[in-house]
């Protein structure tokens, strides 16, 4: 038997805690009761559903990759250097965490849209981003990037610089230190950050519909498909929602597993 120290909590805290947990779990259960199990597989394998699911997986994978490519260097610089305006920069980078996604979508539209800040120049080069699959990826990367940066910066702070210092005195160049020491040490943090970014990308709705629109097979990801189906075929919406819930549960499990390995 495992001996646990007495928790020392006042008894009353269990009441609001239980209510809060119920508040999260009950809606999921309510949704489960509405699933038409007889039609479940035909609903989630319809052409439009499959197209939306595949598009979601493709774009989320691409934005996770972009998050890693840009987020790892950002986290390293935030964690390992100090410069004027660093706090401000960190706050700005993390802004998408608290910004309504639809605002993010509008911001992206005025950057990459045809009349946007960069869009006009891109238009001359024959590149149009808004309302394309690329726009979906950019919208998802915009909202998911802070998750990776926050997660990895925390892991880097926890790991400290002592191993890196030792590696340098053993003759390792900065790139070698990065590859053979830093990354292996923070791998669990990086993995859980990537998983969280993937999950955030998969669930993205507001920025996507604002910046990329809702074209079947091009920009209509699973959350958009669910939103549209809700009006025409609520059973399909519920079935697809369940698919996203399952994916989310798997993702949270993976992220927790990664953190567990780090501890």
């Amino acid at each position, binding site marked *: 038997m495992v001996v646990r120290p007495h928790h020392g909590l006042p008894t009353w805290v269990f009441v609001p805690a239980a209510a809060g947990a119920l508040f999260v779990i009950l809606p999921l259960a309510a949704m489960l009761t509405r699933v038409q199990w007889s039609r479940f597989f035909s609903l989630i394998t319809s052409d439009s559903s499959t197209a939306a699911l595949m598009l979601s997986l493709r774009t989320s994978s691409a934005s996770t990759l972009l998050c890693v490519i840009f987020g790892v260097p950002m986290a390293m610089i935030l964690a390992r250097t100090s410069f004027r305006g660093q706090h401000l920069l960190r706050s700005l980078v993390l802004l998408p965490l608290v910004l309504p996604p639809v605002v993010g979508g509008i911001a992206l539209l005025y950057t990459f849209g045809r009349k946007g800040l960069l869009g006009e120049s891109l238009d001359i080069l024959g590149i149009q981003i808004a309302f394309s699959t690329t726009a979906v990826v950019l919208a998802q990367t915009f909202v998911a990037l802070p998750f990776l940066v926050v997660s990895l910066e925390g892991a880097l702070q926890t790991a400290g610089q*002592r*191993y890196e*210092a*030792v*590696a*340098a*005195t*053993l*003759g*390792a*160049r*900065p790139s*070698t*230190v990065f590859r*053979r*020491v830093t990354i*292996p*040490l923070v*791998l669990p943090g990086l993995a859980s950050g990537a998983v969280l970014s993937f999950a955030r990308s998969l669930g993205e709705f507001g920025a996507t519909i604002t910046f990329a629109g809702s074209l079947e097979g091009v920009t209509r990801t699973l959350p958009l498909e669910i939103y549209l189906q809700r009006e025409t075929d609520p059973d399909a919406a519920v079935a697809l929602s369940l698919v996203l819930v399952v994916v989310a549960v798997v993702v949270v499990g993976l992220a927790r597993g990664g953190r567990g390995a780090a501890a």
Partner: protein
Amino acid sequence: MTLEFSATIEERGVDLALDIADQEVIAILGPNGAGKSTILQVISGLLRPDRGHVKLDGRTLLNVGHAETPRVWVPPHDRGVALLAQEPLLFPHLTALDNVAFGPRCAGQSRHRATSSATHWLKEVDALEYAARKPAQLSGGQAQRVSVARALAAEPRLLLLDEPMAALDIAIAPSIRQMLRRVLRGQSAIIVTHDVLDALLLADRVVVVDQGDVVEQGLTAEVLARPRSAFAARIAGLNMVQGDLEGSGVRDETGLVVQGVPDPSAAQYGRAVAVFRPSAVGVYLHPPGGSIRNVIPVTVTEMEPRGDLIRVRSAHLSADITAGSVAELDLVPGAKVLFAVKASEVAVYSA
């Protein structure tokens, strides 16, 4: 090794300069917070001083804050200076063997050559049997052995040791110290310590640092035999019997023989010293039984409190015992007692 070193760090109140010519192993001694570790951090390039100059074997590694000479900053990986810290800091994701092979790999050696070099160094520190283990599966002493091998395998021009025994169980520190004494032969090294045994056993020369300044330096034996600074005198508060090697002990001019653990590399005869701590000495009125091999009759000259112990002094030796023991033995200056110390507590090595 020749080393020119100077550094000023306003924030830490450190302003140090030292010059070392043709010495292999230097011990930097001093109380905590004296700026000892700062010296190592500056030499290794992990800390950039406000003003400083480091020249190792004719190569300028650092020159900053001097307007009249060009600025030089060699990055840590290019200095040929390895650092061994209190904690082993083995890379947790690599096996002991891969940890030791890290330096050779960074130097561009093939995997095969790096592995054979790592094997060689693990053997040198008596840790070859742990080669396949991850650091989490090693004890503190085992990990520190691997860490020493890792630092040496990088073939540094200069090895810096920052209190390498401080975090170890006192029971295993002596064997690590003997190992270091063996592997440091022929290796330029600077060891920072507050343990005088490290200086005695490992260093040719000591530099005593206090409150950010060098207060004394010289050949280790000279400094500790005739301390010229308060700190050196305090840290030299060891019992030392000098004489000729006789078996596993040392016989001094008065005929006193102190048995100990000889350094395996010590000569079979000749000048030697037996060194032991006052805290290893027991005080008795009658000869103690058991395995204690050194029982020395002395006359108590004075007693003084020392932390939670009482230092009992005779003409040449001291013992640190509890106040309870002092009361029990009814000790007063002039009392004739027996100082007893186990041979395993006595380090014997060539003088």
